[in-house]
C-alpha cells in the first residue's frame, strides 16, 4: 500500500498518534518493523516508483541504459513476479500502468492530473478493495493512494484536511490487515503488508527537491511472521528507499533486481535461522558486487568488494562447520562474525554504488563553457560593425596575440591546469588529452579573451559616435525587429524551464504565428495606408491631399467591379493582375498561418499532449493505406510543380524521375500501394529503388556544383551561380523526399509552398533586409524541425532514415542520412536562404550579412543553454530532459557551422570575381 507524499511524521510523529491509531497499535504491539526510508532526489512519483520496484537510483543506470522510454524495461520486481507466475493486481495512480503496461492481471488507473480532487481518486481505489480482499486469486496487490499528495499540493502539510485523510488511510490499513489475518488461518504462508510513501512533502506542500521533509518517508512492514517484541517502542531506523526492492525480492523468493543498489533490511530477517540469514545476505552482496563490477572499472580496489570477498570466505568456513554438524558456541560466534562482516560489506557496497550517481568533470565543462561564451561575446560585440553597409569587421588578432595580457593569461591558465590535473582524484577529460592539445586550448581561451578586451576598448574609444548611431537606429526599429528581438530573448529564457524544453515546439509555433501576424500587419499597412499616411502626420499641411490620395487608393481596389468597369476599355489587362496580386499579397500571411495550423495537426510531439491523436498516426495505420498512397502521390506531384520553376531542363527530368523513384521505393518497402498492385506483395528493402533515387540526387547536386565552379572560374554572370545554388537546393529536396516518412511528405510540400509564397509576396515587395530575412528563415527552419515530428526527446528520432538504400549498417552514411533526415527543416531553409539571397542581384554583401546573422542567432541560444545546463546539473530532469536537448543543440550547432562555412565559400567566390 503506497500512499503518495506520506511524510515520516504523518506516521511516526504526533499526527500519527492522533490520526492513525491502528498503525500506532500495530507498531506498539510489535507486529511491524518500522523504518524511515530516505528517498533520493528527484522526489517525484515516477522515479520513486522506479526506485521502489527496481532498487536502482533513476537518473544514473536507468538513463545510461535507456533514454526515458515510458515503459520500464529494466529488471524490476513486478517483472520478476510476473515471470515467476505470480498474479499482480494494481489499483491507483496510472503511472504504474504506463511503467508496467502488461504486468498486471487486473488494474484500474486513476489519473493524477487534476490536483483539486482528493476524494474521488482515493474512492476509485478503495471501491475495489472489498471484493479483491475476499478473492483468493492474487499473490500481490498494489494500491497507490494519491489523495494525500493532492491535499499537500493544494493546502500544505498542516492543513485540516490532512487529518481525515490519514484517518481514512488508517482505516484502509486496518481493513486490509484484518482481512489478511482472517485469511491467514487457512493459508500456509504468512502475509506481508507494506505501508510506504513514495516521497515526502515539503513545508509548502510540494515535492521534487531534496529537503529533509521531502526525502524522508515512512516504511512499515507488517506481518504475523515477525516475532513480537513487546514493550519499548524503538525509534525507527533510517534506511534507503532502494532497500525495499531487495527485501521484497528476498521475501517473495524472487531474484533481486539486477540494478538494485539497496541492501536487505536486516531486522526483517533477524529472526530467521542463521543459515537462512547468511544465505539472504550472500545473495544480496553477490548481486551488488556484480553491479559494481559492471559499473566501476577498478572494482577490485573497492573496500566493499574486498569486504565481500572476506565475508564470502568466512561464510564458506561457516558452512563447512555447519555441515559437519558442529552445533557449538563456535558456530554461533563465527556465524555472528560472518553476519557482521556481510552487513558491513553490504553497507560499503551500497554506499559506493550510490556515490556513482553524480560525478561531473567540472573542470572540462567550465573550460568548454568559457570558450563558447567568449565566442558568443565576440560575435555580439562585432554585430554593429558586421551589419553595417560594407559588412566588414576586423578582429584585432595579431596585435592582441602578442600583448602582455595574452602571455600572462596563458601562463596562469597553464599553472591552473597543472595544479588541477595533479591534484584531481577523478579522471578528467582535459587532463587525459595530450599536454600539447591542452596548451592549445589554453592559448585559444586567452587569445579570445584578449580579442574581446581589445574590441571592448575600441568600442569605448568610439563610444560617442556609436551612441549617436545607436540612438538613430533604435528609433527606426519596426515592430518586426522588436518581435524578432523579444522572440529570441524569450526563447533563450524559456530554455531554463524543463517544461518549455519538452514543449519547445509550442514556443516555435507560437513565434512563427506571431511573426506571420506581424507580417500580415505590415502588408496590410503597406497597402491600405501606403507611406503617405505616415508621412502626412509629420507634414500636416498635406492632409487634404492625402485624404484624396487615400480615397484614390480606395477606389483602386476596394471597388474592384466598379473601377474595373471604368478601366476595362482602356487598360483592363494591366490593372486586373495588379489588383489580384494585391489581394494575394494581403492573403499570403493568412495562407501561411493556415498552412502552419494544418502542419501542427500532422505530428503531435512533445510530452504533455503527445498522447493526442494526430493526423500522422491516422495515416500510418494500416487501414488507411490508400489514403496515404494518394497523399504521397499528390505531395510528390506538388513537390515537382513547386520545384521545377527554378530547374534547368536537365535537372527537371532528373527531378521527375527521382520523385517517381521515391514513390517506387515507398511502394517497394510496403508503405504505400501502387495503383495496379491491389494485393499485398512481398516486401523488399527497396535497395534498388533507393539507389536509383540516389543517382538522381547526386546527379542534380553535381550539376549544381558544376555551375558553381563554372561561375567561379570563367567569371560568368551571377545567374549561373544562383542557378547552381538552386540545383543544389533541389537535389537536397529530392533527398529529403526520399528520407521523410511518407506521411511527412506534406511537411516538405508546405515548406516549399511557404518559401515560394514568402519570396513572391513578402520578402521581395516589402524589401526586408538580409538580417530580417535570415532570422525569419531560421525561425521557420526551427518550426519545421518540429513540424516533421521531432522533439527534444531521443525517442522521436527516426533512425530508419539511416538505412534507406543500404544493405547493412554502415556507420558514416547511416549517420549522415539520419542527421540530414532529422534536420531537414533547418537545412532546407538555410539553403533556401542562400539561394534566395544570391538570386537577388541588387543586394550587395547580403550573403555575408546573412551568414553572420545565422551564426549569431544560432549561437546565442546554444551558449545560453550550455551555461544553464552547467548550473542546473543537479536538476531533477537533467538526464531526461536537459541532456537530450543538449545533444540536439550540439548537432544543430555542428550543422549550423557547416552551413556557415558553405555561406562563406559562396561569398568568397563573389569577392574573387571582380
Amino acid at each position, binding site marked *: 500500500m503506497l500512499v503518495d507524499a506520506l511524510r515520516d511524521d504523518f506516521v511516526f510523529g504526533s499526527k500519527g498518534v492522533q490520526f492513525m491509531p491502528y498503525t500506532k497499535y500495530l507498531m506498539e504491539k510489535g507486529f511491524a518493523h518500522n523504518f524511515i526510508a530516505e528517498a533520493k532526489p528527484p522526489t517525484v512519483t515516477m522515479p520513486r516508483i522506479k526506485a521502489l520496484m527496481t532498487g536502482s537510483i533513476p537518473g544514473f543506470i536507468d538513463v545510461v541504459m535507456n533514454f526515458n522510454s515510458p515503459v520500464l524495461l529494466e529488471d524490476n520486481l513486478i517483472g520478476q513476479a510476473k515471470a515467476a507466475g505470480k498474479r499482480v493486481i494494481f489499483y491507483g495512480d496510472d503511472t504504474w500502468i504506463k511503467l508496467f503496461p502488461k504486468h498486471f492481471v487486473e488494474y484500474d488507473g486513476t489519473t493524477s492530473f487534476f490536483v483539486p480532487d482528493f476524494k474521488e481518486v482515493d474512492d476509485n481505489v478503495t471501491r475495489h478493495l472489498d471484493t479483491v480482499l475476499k478473492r483468493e486469486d492474487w499473490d500481490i496487490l498494489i494500491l497507490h493512494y494519491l489523495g494525500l499528495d493532492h491535499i499537500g499540493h493544494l493546502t500544505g502539510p498542516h492543513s485540516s484536511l490532512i487529518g481525515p485523510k490519514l484517518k481514512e488511510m488508517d482505516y484502509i490499513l486496518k481493513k486490509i490487515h484484518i482481512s489478511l489475518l482472517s485469511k491467514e488461518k487457512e493459508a500456509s504462508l504468512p502475509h506481508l503488508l507494506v505501508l510506504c510513501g513514495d516521497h515526502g512533502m515539503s513545508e509548502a506542500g510540494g515535492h521534487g527537491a531534496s529537503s529533509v521533509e521531502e526525502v524522508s518517508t515512512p516504511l512499515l512492514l507488517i506481518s504475523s511472521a515477525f516475532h513480537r517484541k513487546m514493550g519499548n517502542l524503538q525509534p525507527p531506523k533510517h534506511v534507503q528507499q532502494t532497500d525495499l526492492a531487495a527485501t521484497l525480492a528476498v521475501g517473495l523468493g524472487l531474484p533481486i533486481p539486477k540494478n538494485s543498489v539497496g541492501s536487505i533490511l536486516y531486522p526483517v530477517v533477524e529472526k530467521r535461522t542463521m543459515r537462512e540469514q547468511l544465505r539472504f545476505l550472500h545473495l544480496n552482496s553477490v548481486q551488488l558486487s556484480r553491479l559494481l563490477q559492471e559499473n566501476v572499472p577498478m572494482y577490485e580496489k573497492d573496500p566493499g568488494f574486498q569486504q565481500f570477498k572476506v565475508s564470502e570466505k568466512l561464510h564458506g568456513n561457516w558452512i563447512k562447520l555447519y555441515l559437519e554438524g558442529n552445533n557449538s558456541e563456535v558456530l554461533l560466534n563465527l556465524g555472528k562474525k560472518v553476519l557482521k562482516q556481510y552487513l558491513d560489506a553490504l553497507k560499503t557496497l551500497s554506499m559506493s554504488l550510490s556515490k556513482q550517481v553524480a560525478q561531473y568533470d567540472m573542470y572540462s565543462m567550465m573550460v568548454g563553457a568559457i570558450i563558447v561564451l567568449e565566442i558568443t561575446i565576440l560575435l555580439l560585440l562585432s554585430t554593429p560593425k558586421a551589419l553595417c553597409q560594407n559588412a566588414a569587421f576586423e578582429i584585432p588578432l595579431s596585435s592582441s596575440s602578442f600583448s602582455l595580457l595574452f602571455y600572462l593569461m596563458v601562463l596562469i591558465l597553464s599553472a591552473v591546469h597543472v595544479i588541477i590535473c595533479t591534484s584531481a582524484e577523478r579522471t578528467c577529460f582535459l587532463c587525459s588529452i595530450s599536454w600539447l592539445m591542452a596548451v592549445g586550448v589554453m592559448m585559444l581561451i586567452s587569445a579570445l579573451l584578449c580579442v574581446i578586451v581589445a574590441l571592448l576598448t575600441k568600442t569605448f574609444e568610439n563610444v560617442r559616435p556609436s551612441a549617436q548611431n545607436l540612438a538613430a537606429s533604435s528609433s527606426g526599429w519596426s515592430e518586426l525587429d522588436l518581435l524578432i528581438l523579444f522572440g529570441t530573448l524569450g526563447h533563450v529564457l524559456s530554455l531554463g524551464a524543463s517544461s518549455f524544453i519538452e514543449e519547445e515546439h509550442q514556443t516555435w509555433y507560437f513565434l512563427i*504565428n506571431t511573426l506571420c501576424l506581424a507580417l500580415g500587419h505590415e502588408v496590410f499597412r503597406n497597402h491600405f495606408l501606403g507611406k503617405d499616411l*505616415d508621412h502626412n502626420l509629420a507634414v500636416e499641411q498635406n492632409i487634404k491631399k492625402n485624404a484624396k490620395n487615400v480615397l484614390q487608393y480606395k477606389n483602386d481596389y476596394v471597388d474592384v467591379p466598379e473601377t474595373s468597369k471604368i478601366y476595362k476599355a482602356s487598360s483592363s489587362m494591366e490593372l486586373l493582375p495588379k489588383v489580384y496580386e494585391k489581394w494575394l499579397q494581403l492573403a499570403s500571411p493568412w495562407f501561411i498561418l493556415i498552412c502552419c495550423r494544418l502542419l501542427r495537426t500532422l505530428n503531435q510531439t512533445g510530452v504533455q499532449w503527445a498522447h493526442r491523436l494526430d493526423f500522422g498516426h491516422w495515416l500510418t495505420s494500416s487501414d488507411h493505406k490508400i489514403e496515404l498512397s494518394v497523399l504521397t502521390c499528390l505531395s510528390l506531384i506538388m513537390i515537382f510543380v513547386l520545384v521545377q520553376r527554378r530547374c534547368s531542363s536537365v535537372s527537371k527530368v532528373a527531378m521527375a524521375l527521382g520523385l517517381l523513384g521515391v514513390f517506387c521505393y515507398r511502394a517497394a518497402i510496403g508503405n504505400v500501394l501502387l495503383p495496379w498492385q491491389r494485393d499485398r506483395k512481398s516486401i523488399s528493402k527497396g535497395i534498388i529503388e533507393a539507389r536509383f533515387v540516389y543517382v538522381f540526387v547526386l546527379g542534380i547536386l553535381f550539376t549544381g556544383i558544376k555551375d558553381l565552379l563554372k561561375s567561379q572560374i570563367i567569371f560568368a554572370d551571377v545567374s549561373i551561380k544562383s542557378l547552381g545554388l538552386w540545383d543544389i537546393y533541389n537535389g537536397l529536396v529530392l533527398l529529403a523526399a526520399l528520407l521523410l516518412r511518407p506521411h511527412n511528405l506534406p511537411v516538405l510540400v508546405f515548406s516549399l509552398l511557404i518559401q515560394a509564397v514568402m519570396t513572391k509576396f513578402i520578402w521581395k515587395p516589402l524589401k526586408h533586409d538580409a538580417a530580417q530575412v535570415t532570422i525569419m528563415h531560421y525561425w521557420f527552419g526551427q518550426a519545421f524541425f518540429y513540424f516533421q515530428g521531432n522533439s527534444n526527446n531521443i525517442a522521436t528520432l527516426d533512425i530508419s532514415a539511416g538505412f534507406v538504400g543500404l544493405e547493412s549498417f554502415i556507420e558514416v552514411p547511416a549517420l549522415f542520412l539520419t542527421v540530414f533526415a532529422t534536420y531537414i527543416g533547418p537545412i532546407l531553409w538555410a539553403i533556401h536562404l542562400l539561394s534566395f539571397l544570391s538570386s537577388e542581384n541588387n543586394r550587395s554583401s547580403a550573403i555575408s550579412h546573412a551568414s553572420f546573422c545565422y551564426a549569431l542567432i544560432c549561437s546565442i541560444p546554444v551558449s545560453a543553454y550550455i551555461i544553464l545546463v552547467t548550473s542546473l546539473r543537479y536538476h531533477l530532469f537533467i538526464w531526461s530532459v536537459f541532456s537530450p536537448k543538449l545533444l540536439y543543440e550540439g548537432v544543430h550547432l555542428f550543422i549550423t557551422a557547416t552551413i556557415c562555412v558553405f555561406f562563406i565559400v559562396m561569398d568568397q567566390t563573389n569577392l574573387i570575381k571582380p
Partner: protein
Amino acid sequence: MKILRPKDVKTKGMRQINVRGGSQRVLALCLLFVHFESLPYGERLQGSTMKDADIKRLFYVHIFCIVSIILTTFIPSFFLEDFSVLETHLTWLCICSMCVAIINVVLYLQVKPNPSSKRSSIFHKISRLLKSCVYFFISCLLFHAIIVLYGAPLIELMLETFLFAVILSTFTTLPCLCLLGPNIKAWLRVFTRNGATSIWDNSLQITTMSSVIGAWLGAFPIPLDWERPWQVWPISCTLGATFGYMAGLLISPVWIYRNRKQLTYKSR
C-alpha cells in the same frame, strides 16, 4: 466598405474631426459635463486646461472600468452558488464581458459626443448601431480564427475558445466602436505608428495593445507542468487578457499625462 465611401465624400467635416481630433471634441465634451465651467479663455490656456481635465476624466473612466472588473469577480457569488472565477470560468467570462461592454457603452456615450449624431436621422443611428453589432460579431469570429490558428483545438472546447474571443473583442473592438464608430479607416489611422492624435486615441491604442499582449503572454504558462487549475485552456489566456486590459487602463492615463506635451492635441 462600399457604404462608407459616399459618406466620406459627403461629410468631409467629419473626417476632419477624426483626423484633427482635438478641439471640437473637447468643446462638445465640455458641453456635456456641466461642472466644467472654464470655457471662454484664450486658445492656448484653454487647450492645456482642457487637456488636463480630459486626462482626469479619462482616468476616472478607467478607474471605473477596473473597479467594475474587480467587482465581477465576487459580486456574482452572492447570487450564484459555487461561483468562482476559476471553477465556473465560463460564467465569469460571460458576466465580465457583459459588464465591461455595458460600462464601456454607457461611459463613452456619456463622455464622448457623437459628431454625426446631431446631424443624422434615427435611421442613420440605427444603421450605425447595426453596423457596430455586425463589426463586433465579425471581430469575435476573427479573434476566434486567430486563436485557432495559434493552436487552440478546432472542435472541442469551441465554446471556451469563442468566449475567449468574445472577451478579447470586448476589451479591444468595443471601445474602438464606441469611440471611433464603425469606421474602418479611422481605426486604421489610430492603429498605425504615430497615428493616434488625441488623448482618447492614445488610450485606445494602449489598452488595446496591452490586452492583446496580455492574452499573448497568458498562453505561456500553459505548457508548464505545474498542474494548476488556472493552466487549463483558456483560463490563463483570458486572465492574461484581463490583467493586460487593466494594466492598460492604468498605464494609459499615466503615459498620456507624461507625454501630454508631445501629443498633437490641437490641430492648428
